[in-house]
């Protein structure tokens, strides 16, 4: 490895309204290394890289490429300096072919006017063969897998002769096998002389692929350490600044009868692929069942089926004996299901509605909140007042629009609504995503309280420590199947192996 850094960021500062995203951050990249940028959601990693790629401009600080200071006013400038970026949300045009996407804005031409598609295709084939990708240059993006789409994104950067590659949370959308393939590709690229910046919040990946790790926390650079000295525990502590595992105080569980019975459910996703392949599980009264798994293994589709938003292609779903397999969302709600959705702003709340209106989202057409189709504002407001006090929602009253509240308080409203309906089974999907510590504790306490009053809770989360601290039983979902059941005493390592497919052979038939 060369001594002089190929890229240097000095003192980068970026302020957005209300938040300091980057606070005098230093970062450097040596030639031929993979340097990981680690941090929680919101630590400032993406902002820093967007500045490097010319999508944002820094308020202070400078960027040096091969020792020369440069300014980027658009991605065009960054591309010219040899920097390429693969974003978390792919910047690919679904209806166009792989070749068209790759050569866009740097198209080869015949006679300077016409697009030379044949020549472009040849170039794409050359590059993909050189780096060992297997890509059909004429396929449309909407017809290829996510893993292949990511490779197209990488090819885009290679086509433009990038020698610095930035990958923003690349494995967030990949299955574990695709992730392994990606790492192999990255190693190949490094061997060809590329330098890679790898943004992630997953500790195990970082330890696998990186040579050095820089940790960001709340906009500041905390530390830069070589891989040799790092452990998952030490990295986690730097990332979060405290002991990671939050164990909630809870009594041991005493599960009762089966409240929700799911048998051999199969669900197809929007692309027509089978996302849930025969999942069976039971949720008993008085227990919290946690479903652990990497994003994209069927969690969303499973929840959609259990809440009635998607019809399963096969299997049975029962709540307290009622068959709800082919019923719509309303029927599920009536049968005693509560649902805290993963995206509170888009799905959990109507932001423009007042808190009172949001709180009656499931019951507005029932007595006493309405009669013969006419709403009763007094009763709706009264209920809202009670709930807002009981659940300690701050930031507004019953008439305040939901958009005016902070994320934590918004989630409290959602929880208040769902829990106060006394559901038999409560499904909580990513309930603490994007919340601060206080709000997280509140939500956890609510879930445990629900369980203690004899309800059943199904917790689906991508955060392992949340699953471990809350669940009475843990199921691991991998590639649409439940591959193992664990007690909360299981180690993260055990769960991690199962989540990444290590227990595939032992999956329930």
């Amino acid at each position: 490895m060369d001594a002089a850094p190929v890229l240097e960021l000095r003192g980068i500062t970026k302020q957005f309204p209300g938040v300091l995203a980057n606070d005098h951050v230093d970062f450097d990249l040596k030639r031929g290394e993979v340097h990981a940028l680690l941090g929680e959601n919101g630590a400032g990693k993406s902002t820093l890289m967007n500045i490097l790629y010319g999508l944002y401009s820094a308020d202070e600080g400078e960027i040096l490429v091969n020792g020369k200071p440069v300014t980027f006013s658009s991605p065009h400038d960054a591309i010219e300096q040899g920097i390429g970026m693969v974003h978390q949300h792919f910047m690919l045009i679904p209806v166009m072919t792989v070749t068209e996407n790759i050569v866009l804005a740097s198209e080869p031409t015949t006679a300077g006017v016409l697009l030379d598609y044949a020549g472009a295709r040849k170039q794409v084939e050359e590059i993909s063969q050189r780096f060992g990708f297997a890509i059909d240059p004429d396929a449309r993006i909407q017809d290829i897998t996510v893993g292949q789409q990511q490779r197209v994104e990488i090819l885009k950067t290679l086509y433009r002769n990038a020698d610095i590659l930035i990958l923003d949370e690349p494995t967030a959308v990949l299955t574990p096998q695709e992730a392994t393939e990606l790492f192999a590709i990255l190693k190949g690229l490094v061997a060809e002389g590329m330098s890679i910046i790898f943004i992630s919040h997953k500790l195990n990946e970082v330890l696998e692929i990186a040579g050095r790790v820089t940790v960001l926390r709340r906009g500041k650079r905390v530390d830069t350490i070589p891989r040799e000295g790092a452990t998952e525990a030490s990295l986690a502590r730097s990332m979060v600044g405290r002991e990671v595992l939050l164990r909630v105080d809870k009594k041991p569980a005493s599960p009762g009868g089966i409240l929700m019975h799911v048998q051999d459910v199969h669900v197809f996703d929007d692309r027509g692929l089978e996302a849930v392949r025969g999942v069976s599980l039971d949720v008993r009264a008085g227990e919290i069942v946690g479903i652990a798994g990497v994003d994209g293994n069927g969690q969303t589709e499973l929840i959609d089926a259990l809440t009635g938003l998607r019809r399963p292609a096969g299997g049975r779903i029962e709540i307290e004996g009622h068959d709800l397999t082919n019923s719509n969302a309303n029927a599920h709600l009536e049968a005693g299901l509560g649902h805290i959705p993963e995206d509170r702003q888009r799905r959990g709340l109507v932001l423009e509605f007042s808190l009172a209106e949001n709180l009656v989202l499931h019951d507005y057409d029932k007595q006493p909140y309405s009669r013969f189709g006419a709403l009763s504002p007094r009763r709706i407001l009264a209920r809202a007042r009670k709930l807002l006090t009981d659940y300690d929602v701050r930031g507004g009253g019953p008439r305040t629009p939901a958009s005016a509240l902070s994320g934590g308080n918004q989630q409290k409203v959602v929880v208040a609504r769902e829990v106060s309906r006394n559901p038999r089974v409560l499904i909580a999907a990513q309930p603490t995503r994007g919340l601060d510590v206080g709000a997280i504790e509140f939500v956890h306490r609510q879930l445990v309280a629900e369980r203690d009053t004899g309800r059943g809770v199904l917790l689906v989360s991508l955060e392992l420590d949340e699953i471990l601290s809350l669940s009475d039983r843990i199921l691991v979902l991998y590639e649409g199947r439940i591959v193992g059941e664990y007690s909360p005493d299981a180690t993260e390592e055990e769960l991690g192996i199962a989540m990444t497919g290590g227990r595939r052979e032992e999956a329930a038939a």
Partner: protein
Amino acid sequence: MSSEPGGGNGDLEQPPAPEALATDPTAYAPSVGERLAIYQRAGGIVTPVITAVFAFFMGGIVVAATGHNPWKVYKGIFTGSGLNWFFHVGSYSITIPGTNHHVWFWWNTSIQSNAAYNLQQTLILTTTLSLTGLAVAFAFRCGLFNIGGQGQYLIGVITGLWIGTSFPHLARGPHIILAIVVASGCGAVWAAIAGFLKAATGAHEVITTIMLNWIAYWIGSYLLGQGGPLQNSFNPSLPVSNTVVNSAKLPVFWGNAALQALHIGFFIAIGALIAFWFILNRTTLGYEVRAVGFSPEAARYGGISIARNYVVAMAISGCFAGLAGVLDMLGYQYRFGVLDVQTSQLGFIGIAVALLGRNKAIGVALSALLFAALLYGTSTRSIDQTVLKPELAGNLTLMIQALVLLFVGADVLIMGLWQARRRLLPGRMKPSAPTAEAG
């Protein structure tokens, strides 16, 4: 589908993933009306007033640039519209209907005065425009852009005409009620076609309603043309219909009936405005409509059927527009011809009325009054020829309408930015995406 600019979660304006097209009608070419949900948060009367003033100002520039005196022109329009009637305060009296008792009143309701006559005509137009405005506004509240008000209005007119010229032996009450119910119903059906297509196939309602407008236009031209089924029975070369029978005409309450007086449709329109407010804010139907308009995804998760609400919202919109049509026909029009079909604009003006009025009942009412005053004040019967030729004045109205629409479209952004600023509170974990400025 986030409707606020500035974004709350960093994912801005991505086109929907192709997979989403298959299952969700709102993901497919999402309605532009959804973004107009911002109106509902932009409270206050200041912005619409500024918009209107600005539009009038720009119109005045055009007038001045072509050698006329804008001040005189606007004053002429004001007098012509009859709004000056409100300013003649004095000691008058009105007779309580049905008795001979006089009561002191501070405005001169005598039907002799010019201002009173002008005001009656303006109020006649206000009746129509508030209803066509409601037609657009109600659909907007559900996130749908109903440009089809013109077609729905025409359907109401024609159906009202047909019933009004048939059944000559029906008593007055039932005849009128029959016409109103059937015409509003037909308007509702005409609009529901677009709603149904959107719900079932995702067809964009702007396109479908525009197409339906023109289909109604040609159906009307056929029905009233030479040899058409609704053509009059006494002069085959005149492409005009028969006159509505007397038993179907709406009673008038102010003005000389022989010279087009203000009919009770005015009160029906007021009732419609109240009904609009009540349905949206005090019924479960309105709750669902608003939820779907603000956030279709949240509505779906709450168990609300988006498809059903699309159809119902469009039907109610069409009902308002159809009602406008039948009230006009039975209230003062009494007959219709191919030329009337082809030059009618009242449905289109409803778009500007609704947008300026922020899709709210009170706003629609006031903005309908404004446009009606403008429309009548610049008409041939009323504008002073020396100040501005009536043909020019008519085109001036069109320009002002256009300017209102342009500025309304732009000021949405300003309101949106202002609202977005208030929402970026400190203490949230994710850094909010920056509030983008234009350019």
